[in-house]
């Protein structure tokens, strides 16, 4: 590891000012950053911890019936939160897929998203659950839908000094579910990840959102598949169409883990499965 300067600001404004400097990195849980620093793929000159800034961690209920999750909320807390497990099941399932329990006790939801890996385990769920991302900087605050956050692998729209503060989720969908395609049962990276959230009314899908991870340079929504499902009741035929549409929305790569073709096929399979399960949960 190269030497660096370490800062523990107590206010967002101070953190933002420090973060606006060149070669600065934010430290949340450190489960990605520290590994990168040890491997010398990250060589920041200053590391700014968000640990001492009040109000960045925790899950709170919003007035509109939704919830806000602070960026410094530990992934393990997201996984175990009754509110998330009941209302935003796909997110709890995504959180539970990250690393080991030890890692999840350190890692934060904000870090998992800020790292901007297309394979992040919580990102498909946050897409399906239509999360808004609140961003603060010295110039004030702004908010973007999560699907607009990413610009490429490891890349976001965040500009110098901008720090994500919380994820706001609207009131719960009727049912949601996340499935990760992997080889190892636990502690594996997502070959692909698919999350679905559905709103149901009397047996009809009134709205569906599908988030896909590790199938394109950024996490994406399968909007054509979503539109196919809207207004329909669940049948094998409509699921097959939605699966195919989701697969068509992908632009996966072939790498050492598997081929692009396999990824596309698995998007088809897992889209059908996640939507079916999300609908089943809505009925439960």
């Amino acid at each position, binding site marked *: 590891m190269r030497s660096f300067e370490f800062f523990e600001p107590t206010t967002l404004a101070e953190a933002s000012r420090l973060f606006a400097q060149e070669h600065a990195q934010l430290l949340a849980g450190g489960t990605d950053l520290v590994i990168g620093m040890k491997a*010398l793929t990250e060589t920041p000159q200053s590391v700014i911890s968000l640990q001492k800034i009040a109000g960045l961690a925790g899950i709170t209920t919003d007035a509109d019936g939704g919830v806000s999750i602070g960026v410094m909320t530990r992934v393990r807390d997201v996984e175990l939160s009754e509110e998330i497990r009941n209302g935003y099941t796909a997110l709890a399932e995504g959180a539970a897929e990250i690393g080991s329990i030890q890692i999840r006790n350190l890692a934060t939801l904000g870090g998992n998203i800020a790292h901007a890996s297309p394979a992040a385990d919580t990102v498909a769920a946050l897409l399906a659950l239509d999360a808004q991302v609140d961003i603060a900087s010295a110039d004030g605050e702004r908010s973007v839908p999560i699907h607009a956050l990413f610009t490429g692998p490891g890349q976001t729209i965040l500009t110098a000094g901008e720090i994500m503060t919380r994820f706001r989720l609207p009131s719960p969908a009727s049912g949601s579910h996340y499935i990760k*395609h992997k*080889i*190892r049962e636990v502690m594996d990276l997502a070959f692909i990840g698919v999350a679905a959230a559905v709103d149901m009314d009397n047996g009809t899908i009134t709205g569906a959102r599908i988030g896909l991870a590790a199938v394109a340079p950024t996490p994406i929504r399968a909007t054509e598949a979503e539109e196919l499902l809207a207004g329909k009741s669940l049948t094998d035929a409509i699921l097959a169409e939605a699966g195919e549409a989701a697969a068509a929305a992908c632009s996966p790569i072939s790498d050492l883990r*598997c081929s692009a073709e396999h990824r596309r096929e698995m998007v088809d399979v897992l889209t059908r499965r996640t939507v079916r399960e999300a609908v089943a949960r809505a009925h439960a």
Partner: protein
Amino acid sequence: MSDYTVVGQKVPRVDAIEKVTGAAHYGADVHPAGMLYGKIIRSKHAHANIIRIDTSEAEKLSGVRAIITQADVLSGRRVFATDKVLYLGEPLAAVAATDPDIAEEAAELVHIEYEVLPVVQDVMEAIKPSAPRLHGDATKDGPNRRGISTQLRKLARDKENDHGDEIRSLEAELEKYPDEVYYNISAESHTEAGDVEQGFADSDVVVEDTYVIPRVHQTYMEPHVSVASADSSGKVTVWASTQGPFAIRSGIAGTLGIPLTQVNVIGTTMGGGFGGRFGVIITHVPAVLLSQKTGRPVRVQMTREEEFLDGRPAPGCVIKLKTGATKDGRILARQALAFWDSGSVSGASIGSTIRVRGVYKIPNLKVDAYGVHTNKSGTAAYRAPGAPQAIFAGESQLDEIAERIGMDAVEFRLMNMREEGDAVPAGGSEPKVGYKETLQAVADAAGWWERETDENQGWGVAVGDWTNGCGPGGVYISVHEDGSVRIFHGSMDITGTDTSISQIIAEILTVPYENVTITRGDTDSAPYSTGSGGSVVTFTMGNTAKLAAEDTHRRILELASERLNTNVDNLELREGAVHIITADPPKSISLGELAAYSLSTTGGPIVGKGSFARQPSTPALAAQIAKVEVDPETGRTRVLKLIASQDVGFAINPMTVEGQIEGGVVQGYAWAMMEEMQYNESGNVNPGFVDYRVPTSADLPTVESVIVEVPAPNGPYGAKGVGEPPITPTLATMANAVRDAVGIRINELPIKPEKVVTALQRNGH
């Protein structure tokens, strides 16, 4: 067997507490005063000529104490590459610095100029004439299946006589078969018994297939580490994490031209070995060279990435296998042609190809095996070296035959298995073995005969054989005045061997197991001991310990006879005291009292000695059955049941034996389902645990172990080596179970989801 009180019991391991509390002292815990941190500078290309190595900038970095290259190896033995590198990560130089970060920074500042060469990673490509040659122009050396080149090489080596005519005629012969000439060959091995062509001709069913087994890493938890300290007299001390301190001592002495006893190797607690911890030049020699140059102790410790780039993993291989059988289920012939990926040097376990014969009566057998050079690091042993690969091919194909002739997979195997006195194809005859008992035991335990399956579920069975090695060892025993017993030896504890040794000595000296403790000596102090690999330790050191305990026993009775003033024949050692058998009222003297008494006798303290080198070993069988469920849409396989039986001869500690069985099964499962070192033209592309997957406890059900005991005549209490056999059949067990579940046979490991999906689609799924 119930007469025993300590052996045969599940006593806790002697190292249990220090392991679970973290008190155990591993290689990286060694920190002599003034220690420097070494770092090896490695090739960034898989195949390249080295134009220049420039260390000048790195040398200027503050905190750097030495940078060494091959020029610093005065013995001339190859430690670092000089003009050419053959794999990504090959060592080119090493640096010692006051701080590990400085060492790392210095490594980056060593400038190396390369001329990049074409790379070959696939053995089937490497044998072609078009392949880049790793070791010069090997065209003329290209061996072929007729063994002509072997003869040629033999003749060329004979400088005493002129074989010109013979050589010319053989070369002419060689040219007749250009397609059979293989290139980049590092070694070859040929075995033949009977007439395979006739055997195939007489067969009703002949199956031929190609099996591909990947290179896998031993993935011991503790990466290679050594701390070396060379003093001004030239004496070298090395703290080494190794399976064989004495092998490391002679390796270092030989490589660097140091007198043998000027090297002292202190074995540190081993964080796993599995055969991969015998290497001399991986870290030990660089550490010694850096210490010699700086005059300070130096630690060289590998990162996990370095382990993957420059460890010595198990070789992958391609095996073309053909088997013929009659329709009533007799195997008549088997032929194998194997290409083992030995990497940049020779040394892959190509001889293990013979294990395709299994434990079956096969009258006609032919095995041709080649080691093939590719742009990878060299290989080393991994738990029954070569056997899991060969047995995967053999046992997969056996299931195919059974299926074609409509026989049950267990019945088919039982019918063909050898028994005592049966000829071993190309290798003598069987002693008393427990093959059938072991397979029968696992079938019974698994409920094979009444097995049930739901949709997409299946059962697989396979067996694997292995025979433990044997080697020299020595043990000393002292009995102290408090009646406790102290053992002294120089063998490294591997998966509970010190526990077994303690049990054997406690049994013979009739003392509580807790009263026996072990001190491990270094190579300066302890008697020679063979390396802890090849399932030798309990066999070798168990026999040694037994001899030492019997020697101690003799001395105890001798002392007691003197002290109690009676003939030795009237005495009996039991429950930690010597009793006069015929005395009434009873009369005895405790071991502690005898030890105290011994200090003032002419004969002196109670010391026993045992020394042993070799006795014939007996083959052991591992038989396994798995029940799996395959998701045909995602290709993922879940193991529902895993039952493993093993003939262990005699289980000195059934708990550690079960641990060995479980460990072997898990490693075999991993090799079958997920582990694979992946390479492309730039080298190893998954040098870490993110993309080199080892299983976790969540991937497997509890392994059910079934211990079978058919005693080995020369093993201590009948014990056979237990460490290696359990990995040998698991690869085929898994493939056979997947086949039974969804009707596809995966011959190219690992059985990754994508391969299953693709195969099912090919099957019209």
